[in-house]
């Protein structure tokens, strides 16, 4: 039976169990992620991090999760109340929805019922994740607008522009995977990677996806919608209590989603990694074992998210947009054309992989050679007559400056001391009077 048939056979109780498990997975992963992030970033910055609640502070997330919903809600006077209320909900629901198409494992038996560790296997599974991420942005944008103050509005605007541009890059990086698999279903994509994972077969796609997934989830170094140095808190400046907690939840669930999606698309999903896959005729790729590989890979990406946040400074907005539109999207388009051309060649004439690699190498060498022929960028001509207002206009010592020797400089220093002393004495006298 295929995946879709197995899933269609599921009784209602099994579907409910799976749905509840996915819901719990999102919430628990968020709590684990928050404490891990604080601990890891603290370690990177040579400080202990949270260390009060529980052993070594590992229960801090639980304390926060209990505390946050019970805080006072403050709704700004200028807020558009209905939209203000809806925004956190809109951002949270799609985030959880996307979990339903992620394949967590192959065929297993739950209470005697054969099934697959996945909620649904749609023929357009990949599009579900994209659709959910594009809906989730509404929450951020509406939060920014409904708060009725400028900083959230700016955050919302940034988020809208950012997600539109990075969703294009993300969607394009998936195209190559779909071309190789010949299917939009997430289960088929994992199955197609049995012969080789796509992260090395499709390196450009993988790299572009990794960049755009950070941009898509508004995480450092691309966290411009909530840039705290510029916009106070960005779109969630005016939010508090449970509503703020929902935004928090949505952000972290989104991170888990894009990481799990990346695992599915490029890292062979639930398949056992290479040395392990050799043991016992791929024994570790059956039963419940794949769940372990899947979460290992996903948590690796989540760690990279934390690592990036601890390492890189925030990008400027225009640099960020330039990276998206002028580098990622064109590079992706060129790469897709290349992939299509290669596949067409291989389908039409029986050309071996070595021929393609050699031809590609020759083309690469020629391109590098041609790039040397390009003229260097001309230096900007400075107008020497003009006195610059700033920068170069700062008084600079002349090149032929002769530094006076110590003996000549010594009396001057003495005189200065006397001056300060006399000023101090004068001030004292004044206070006495």
């Amino acid at each position, binding site marked *: 039976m295929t995946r879709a048939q197995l899933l269609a056979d599921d009784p209602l109780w099994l579907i409910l169990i799976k749905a509840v498990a996915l819901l719990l997975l999102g919430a628990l992963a968020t709590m684990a992620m928050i404490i891990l992030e604080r601990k890891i970033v603290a370690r990177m910055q040579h400080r202990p991090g949270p260390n009060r609640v529980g052993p070594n502070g590992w229960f801090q997330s639980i304390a926060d999760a209990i505390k946050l919903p019970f805080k006072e809600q403050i709704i*700004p*006077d*200028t807020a*558009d109340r209905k*939209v203000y209320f809806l925004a956190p909900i809109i951002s949270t629901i799609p985030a959880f929805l996307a979990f339903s198409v992620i394949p967590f494992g192959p065929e297993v038996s739950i209470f005697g019922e054969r099934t697959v560790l996945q909620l649904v296997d*749609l*023929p*357009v599974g990949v*599009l*579900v994740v*994209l*659709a959910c991420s*594009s*809906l989730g*942005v*509404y929450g951020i*944008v*509406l939060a*920014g*607008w409904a708060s*009725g*103050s*400028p*900083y959230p*509005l700016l955050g*919302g*605007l940034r988020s*809208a*522009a950012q*997600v*539109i541009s990075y*969703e294009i890059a993300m969607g394009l990086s998936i195209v190559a995977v779909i071309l190789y698999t010949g*299917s*939009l279903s997430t289960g088929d994509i994992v199955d197609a990677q049995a012969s080789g994972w796509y992260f090395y077969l499709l390196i450009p796609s993988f790299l572009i996806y990794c960049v755009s997934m950070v941009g898509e989830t508004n995480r450092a170094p691309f966290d411009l919608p909530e840039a705290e140095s510029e916009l*106070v808190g960005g779109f969630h400046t005016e939010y508090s209590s449970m509503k703020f907690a929902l935004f928090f939840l949505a952000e972290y669930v989104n991170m888990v989603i894009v990481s799990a999606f990346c695992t599915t698309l490029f890292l062979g999903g639930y398949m056992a990694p290479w040395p392990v896959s050799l043991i016992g005729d791929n024994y570790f790729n059956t039963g419940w074992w794949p769940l372990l590989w899947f979460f290992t890979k996903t948590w690796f990406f989540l760690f990279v998210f934390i690592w990036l946040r601890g390492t890189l400074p925030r990008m400027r907005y225009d640099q960020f947009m330039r990276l998206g539109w002028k580098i990622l999207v064109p590079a992706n388009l060129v790469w897709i054309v290349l992939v299509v051309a290669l596949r067409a060649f291989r389908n039409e004439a029986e050309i071996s992989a070595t021929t393609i690699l050699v031809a590609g190498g020759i083309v690469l060498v020629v391109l590098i050679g041609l790039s040397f022929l390009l003229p260097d960028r001309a230096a900007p001509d400075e107008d020497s007559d003009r006195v*610059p*207002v*700033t*920068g170069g206009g700062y008084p600079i010592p002349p090149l032929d400056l002769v530094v006076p020797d110590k003996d000549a400089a010594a009396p001057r220093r003495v005189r200065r001391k006397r001056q300060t002393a006399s000023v101090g004495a004068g001030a004292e006298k004044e206070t006495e009077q």
Partner: protein
Amino acid sequence: MLLAQQGAATVSTGEAVSFWVLGPLALAGALGMIFARNAVHSALFLVMTMLSLGCIYMVQQAPFLGFVQIIVYTGAIMMLFLFVLMLVGRDASDSVVEVLRGQRLWAGVLGVGLAVLITGAVARSLIDVTDQGLAADTANGGRGNVANIGQLIFSDYLFPFELTSALLITAAVGAMVLGYVNREQRGRRTQKELVEARFRGEHDRPSPLPGPGVFATANSVATPALLPDGSVAPESLSRLIESTTADKLAAERESVAGTGPAAGTRALAPGKEESR
């Protein structure tokens, strides 16, 4: 009538339930979009309509169309609408002045025309067209929904498809040309040139606008900064939200600036005195 009954016979319970949930939702969204006073609310109602339509497509065994509807229309196009609406400000779109003369009349005429067209198309599809069923090789049968759509787009409907893309690209390039024509003529200034221009007086003021005031009584960014003499610095109010906050928070600003009526000496709470 016969045809309608035949159609009704093939509708399963689940499909009927989802239709009667999603259909009214879509209709309510469409009506809300027309009658909402606020432009952003209008856009949100339209999003609801599009989402309901997308879900109806999925129920009708067209998953690709349904999700593309959500990604493209709700995800990208309506997001651009919202973007523009937010850029023009919160209340700018509430203007009731008709810019186009005779707009309502023409809208009515064209609306009726469109309704006639749609009715004709639906009537024809009900009477003339014989249905093939979803299992047909050109529908969801054969290699499945997505593969069949791809096959049709890139073979039978290639020319219309390419024409549409050419139209869209022309529109995008045209918009960029119109939007960038001034900037291209002037040439983009560097940061240094801008600084010099500021100090030469080509701009309104050499420095950025003053930030908002943060006081013990209000920590909103809408609170104006105060000048040394205690009066409000009008430049510190954001142009974007001035129209709302300047009116709404007038009393608060007055009390911060100290220009409002002073509290009586025997009042316990200064604010309560005047409201009595």
